[in-house]
């Protein structure tokens, strides 16, 4: 069964760790949709957030094998329901006198910011869920997107609510 999965992988911050982790995916022909890596509070540790899609059973196997890697401290699968998932996008969009106000309005609706302005383009920065970013892109597309760059998704497990 194909499904999007988010893995949160807590690793030791050492050279080669990324290759070891990525190698387990590539060896099975699994594509990594996005990956974000950064140091944690303790500089000797990093957190990787990997988004991937594919067969659930194979992913379970990958998860077990990730746990087997000496430099991997913990692996956790996160879901949309139990975690906060965010992505940031920078979009350079065509702008002229007739569209500027539209762009500003869209930016406000999406809670974004204009971070660069030129005579005929605006660059927006927007953070949100993957779905929100997708709909932003859909809305801006008719105006003409000159360039776009997205971070991978980052995710953090929600604190459990007391029942």
């Amino acid at each position, binding site marked *: 069964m194909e499904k999007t999965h988010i893995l949160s992988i807590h690793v030791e911050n050492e050279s080669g760790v990324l290759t070891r982790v990525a190698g387990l995916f590539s060896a099975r022909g699994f594509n990594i949709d996005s990956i974000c890596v950064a140091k944690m509070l303790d500089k000797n540790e990093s957190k990787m957030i990997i988004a991937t899609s594919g067969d659930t059973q194979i992913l379970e196997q990958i998860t077990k094998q990730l746990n*087997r890697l*000496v*430099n991997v401290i913990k692996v956790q699968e996160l879901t949309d329901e139990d975690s906060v998932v965010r992505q940031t996008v920078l979009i350079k969009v065509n702008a002229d006198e007739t569209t500027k106000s539209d762009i500003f309005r869209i930016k406000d609706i999406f809670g974004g910011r204009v971070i660069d302005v030129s005579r005929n383009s605006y660059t927006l920065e927007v953070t949100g869920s993957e779905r929100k970013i997708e709909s932003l892109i859909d809305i801006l597309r008719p105006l003409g997107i000159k360039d776009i760059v997205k971070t991978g998704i980052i995710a953090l497990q929600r604190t459990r609510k007391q029942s």
Partner: protein
Amino acid sequence: MEHNSKKKLMTGSKIILESLIREGVDTIFGYPGGAVLNIYDELLNYKSRIKHVLVRHEQGAAHAADGYARASGKVGVVLVTSGPGATNTITGIATANMDSVPMVILTGQVPTNLIGNDAFQEADTVGITRPCTKHNYLVKDIKDLAKTIKEAFYIASTGRPGPVLIDIPKDITSSVYEFDYPETVELRGYSPTYFGHHVQISKLAAEIVKAKRPLLYIGGGVISSNAANELKELAELLDLPVTSTLMGLGGFPSDHPLFFGMLGMHGTYAANMAISNADFIVAIGARFDDRVTGKVEEFGKNAKFAHIDIDPSSIGKNVKIEIPVVGDVKSVLSSLLEILSNKTEEISSAKYERLGWLEEINAWKYEHPLLYHMKDIIKPQYVIEKIYELTAGEAVIATEVGQSQMWTAQFYKFKNPRTLLTSGGLGTMGFGFPAAIGAQIACPDKTVFDIAGDGSIQMNIQELATAVQYNLPVKIAIINNNFLGMIRQWQELFYHKRYSFSEMNINPDFVKLAEAYGAVGLRAKKPDEVVPVIEKALSIKKPVIMDFVVDREESVYPMVAPGSPITGMLLV
């Protein structure tokens, strides 16, 4: 003062050798080269404490260290140079990795300032070996050297064992630092589970008593965890029939009335039928390899499964497991036996109820035993049977890969763990002979054989010089059919006898070849020559090649076609 004397300044080379001694290493298998010259120079000073075995090809070093480790249970150590030295060990490392053999491979690397410069004899060794080691290291600072060696031995020998490689740039081996060997390791991401979960073991105990048609399916984990005694106790306590994978052979005595042989593609009729008719199968240190399960959906289709394994990623990989137990086989079996010791009454009634099940398996055993028919041409199976008889099942047997390997598994009745050394996972031709060399060094008082085909022996024949140099009386039995026999068998069965490049038209004269190397060569062409040749070989305290000229088109049976259910056996 005391502090200073504890932390002595040493070169990297000396640190390496001192660390090896701290790990109890007394033997290494290696081949010198530019990037490890400093280590080799220092090695001369350690001649009395570390025996260095000079092989003739680095692949031989890796397999020999592997054979040494399998036969002794200790960590095998390899020392080779950078670039080609390192790449030549890859097959050996991958072989050890697939079969979970503890090894530490020290490879030289170009000096740190040249790494990434396409320097002479440079290869990205950690990059190349990442997928085929349990873990690997590039030492970039001499401060990390001793700690890295400590970790490498720890990782290699604990949990599910495996090969660990340490890549050491040449400048590290000549620079100087204080030597302080760490007592412990701290690895946050690595802590194998040794003790099985009590709840799971209790469930297993309840099921194993309740089951009407239970079966033990054992694998190499029984051997790596030294659990043969506990296993025997368990089987005998409950009268449990036992079947083994190739890697598990020797983990349970083959001549035991509860043993029904190997299962899988070339397994016995009884073992494969038992798997399919059992209602409860306990997999112990096994990993449900495709050569074992055949069509995986049909494997043990009437059974519930329990699985004991130290590697959680082995559990539930191919087959759904009702009772997973993560832990060391020996420790889990001990706990299981302890729980069972309180169930004496239930056990005796369960044993009584299961008599019919054992009878059924025995009937399969007598219905289709392993057999062959010999007239005036030597049959390969006969050779192996005679080797078994003349060594009383006490020899250490290394094998190559293919028909000779399967006949060995079928016709040599292994009694003890660590007596069969075979490349089960990777299936490496050329493994057996250097592995036999390593085993002979580990066990100088034992008789060590390599059972080979005429194809596979030629893959590492150069090691005959090593065997002669160190006067290792390894006995090589070549099952010579002038074919890559297993390839020929598949071509006969699945490709309408189109023998595409499987015939070995030109082979050397193996007797003369042995003599050219300074070993002894013997040949048997007729059935009545087999026993005298083996007897003679056993009486010679030198490496011996026995060339057995056998029936060219004999096949290994039973055989399950790949992807078929294991009950779909082609019998003789």
